[in-house]
C-alpha cells in the first residue's frame, strides 16, 4: 500500500487534503465529461422539433401535472434505415483500417531502423519523430494541399521529370485522405513500435541465426512475434482517432469521401438535427468501444507481465 497520503494519523486536515485532491479533478470530470455524455444520450432519444433547443424534453409534464418520460429509438432506426449512415460508418472503418495498415508497413522498418541505430543518432532520430507532433495538426494537413493540388508541387515535379504527361487528380480524392492520415498519424505508429523493438533482446536473434535460421526466418519467427504488443499498440493508437477524423477528410477529401466525423459535423451545423447527430455520436462511441477495451486489456497484460 502506498505510503503517501494514506497511513497517517488521519487528522482532520490531512483527510481534507486528500479529499480535496481527489474531489477537484473528480468533480470537474463529472461535470464536463460524464454529464455531457449523458445529455447526448438523452437527446439521442428525443424527437427533433423546431424550437430552442431543437428537441423534445425527456421528462414531459402533461396538463394535469403528471411527469412522464418520453424516449424514442426513431433516430437509431433512422440511422440504420438510411443507407447513407451505414455506408459512412463502413467507409470510415475502411479508410481508417487501410491507412493503419499502410502506416504500419511504413512505420515498422523506420522504428526498427531507429531501434538499431547507435546511441547518439537514436535520440536525434527519435526527437525528429516527435517534433511533427508538436506542430499544428491543421497546418500539417494544410501543407499537403499545396503539394497535392492539380497544379501543385508534386504534379509539377512529376511532369518536370517526365514520369507523367498529364497532371494527376490527387487533391479532393480518397488518395489524398490516405496520404494525410498516414502523414498525420505516423509518429503515433512509430513510437510504440520503437518502444517495443528497443527492448528486443539481440541475443535471441543471434541464437536463431546460429541455429541456422535465415534472415527472413529470424524476422518472421522471432522479431515479428515478439514485437506484436508494439504492433497492436501502434495500430490502436492510430485506428481509434482516425475513425472519427474530421479535419483530414474536410480539407483533403472530395465531396464523396464519407467519414463519420464529417457527417456528424454537417448534420449538426448544416441540418441542425441535434437528435440524429447525437445518435450518430452514440453509435460511433459503441463502434470504438470494442477496439478500446481490447487495447486496454492488452496494455494491462503487458504491465502485468513486466512487473
Amino acid at each position, binding site marked *: *500500500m502506498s*505510503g*503517501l*497520503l494514506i*497511513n*497517517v494519523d488521519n487528522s482532520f486536515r490531512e483527510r481534507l*487534503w486528500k479529499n480535496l*485532491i*481527489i474531489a477537484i*479533478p*473528480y468533480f*470537474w*470530470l*463529472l461535470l*464536463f465529461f*460524464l*454529464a455531457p*455524455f449523458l*445529455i*447526448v444520450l438523452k*437527446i439521442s432519444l428525443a424527437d427533433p422539433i423546431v424550437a430552442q*433547443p431543437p428537441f423534445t424534453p425527456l421528462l414531459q409534464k402533461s396538463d394535469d401535472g403528471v411527469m412522464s418520460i418520453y424516449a424514442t429509438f426513431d433516430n437509431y432506426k433512422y440511422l440504420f434505415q438510411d443507407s447513407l449512415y451505414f455506408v459512412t460508418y463502413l467507409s470510415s472503418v475502411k479508410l481508417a483500417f487501410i491507412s493503419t495498415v499502410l502506416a504500419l508497413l511504413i512505420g515498422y522498418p*523506420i522504428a526498427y*531502423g*531507429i531501434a538499431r541505430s547507435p546511441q547518439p543518432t537514436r535520440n536525434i532520430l527519435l526527437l*525528429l*519523430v516527435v*517534433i*511533427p507532433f*508538436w*506542430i*499544428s*495538426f*491543421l*497546418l500539417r494537413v494544410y501543407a499537403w*494541399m*499545396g*503539394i497535392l*493540388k492539380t*497544379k501543385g508541387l508534386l504534379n509539377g515535379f512529376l511532369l518536370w521529370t517526365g514520369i507523367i504527361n498529364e497532371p494527376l487528380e490527387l487533391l479532393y480524392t480518397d488518395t489524398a485522405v490516405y496520404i494525410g492520415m498516414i*502523414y498525420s498519424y*505516423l509518429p503515433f505508429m512509430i513510437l510504440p513500435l520503437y518502444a517495443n523493438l528497443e527492448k528486443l533482446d539481440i541475443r535471441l536473434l543471434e541464437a536463431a541465426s546460429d541455429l541456422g535460421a535465415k*534472415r527472413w526466418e529470424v524476422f518472421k519467427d522471432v522479431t515479428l512475434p515478439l514485437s506484436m504488443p508494439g504492433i497492436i499498440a501502434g495500430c490502436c493508437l492510430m485506428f*481509434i*482517432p482516425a475513425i*472519427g477524423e*474530421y*479535419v483530414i477528410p474536410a*480539407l483533403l477529401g472530395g465531396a464523396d469521401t464519407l467519414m463519420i*466525423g464529417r457527417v*456528424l*459535423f454537417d448534420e*449538426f451545423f448544416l441540418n441542425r438535427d441535434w437528435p440524429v447527430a*447525437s445518435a450518430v*455520436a452514440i453509435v*460511433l*462511441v459503441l463502434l*470504438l468501444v470494442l477496439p*478500446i477495451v481490447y487495447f*486496454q486489456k492488452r496494455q494491462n497484460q503487458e504491465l502485468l507481465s513486466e512487473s
Partner: protein
Amino acid sequence: MNQRSTFIFSMLCFGFAFLYIPIVLVIIYSFNDSKLVTVWGGWSIRWYMELFNNENILNAALLSFKIAAITATCATIFGTMAGLVLARLRQFRGRMLFTGMIASPLVMPEVITGLCLLLLFVNLQNLIGWPSQRGMNTITIAHITFSMAYVAVIIQSRLTEINESLEEAAMDLGARPARVIWDITLPIIFPAMVSGWLLAFTLSLDDLVISSFVSGPGATTLPMLIFSKVRLGISPDINALATILILVVAVGVSIAGWIIHRQKQAKAIS
C-alpha cells in the same frame, strides 16, 4: 552495407523525408513573392507584412494564445492532482469511474467531445442561465477538460517510474503528507509538469473541432480562422503564419529539451 541495412536505411530516409518535406515546403513558399501559391516568383516577405496588418488574424492569435495559456495552467494543476490520485491512491470509492473518466477523453473522437460539451452548455444555459454566452469561457473549459487527461497520464507515468521510498522516508521522519507532496513529490515531477504544461498549451492552440462546437459568435480562434480560409484553397499568408507557428514550436521544444537536459545533468552530478 548488406541488403537488409540498405533497405532499413532507405526506409529511414524515405520516412523522414515524408515527415519533413511538406513542412520545409511551407516554410520556403512562405517567402514566395507570387500570389499563385505554387508558382515561384522570387523571394519576398510581403506575406509576413500582410499578416501583421491583418487585424482578424492578430485578434484570433491573441485569443488562441490567451486560451492556451489559461488552459495549460489549469490543466497542469488539475492533471497533476489527477495523476497523483491515479499513481498514489490505490483505494477510494469511485476509483474505477475516475480512471475511466481520465482515460476516455484520450480516445474520444473530437467531434463527440465537442458535441457533448456544446449540448451541456446549451442545457446549462436553459437551466441556470450560465454560461450566458458561449465564447472564450466555454472554449477554455472544453480545452481544460481534454488536456488535463493528457497531463494526468504524463504525471502518472512519471510517478510510477520513481521510487516511493523517498516519500515514505520523509513520512517516517514525521513530515505531513501535504508537506511531502510540496517538498518531495512536486520537485521530482516538476519536469513532467513542464512537459504537461507544454503539451496542454499545444493541444489547446491546435484544437479546431472542439472549439468550433463550443464557440459562440465573436469568438474565433486561430485554427478556426485558418480553417475557414484554407477550406476554400491554399493562401500565401497562411504559409507565413504556419512558418511563424513552426518557429514558435521549434523554440519551445528546444527550451523544454534544454530544461530536461539540465535536470538530468544536475541529477548525474548529485
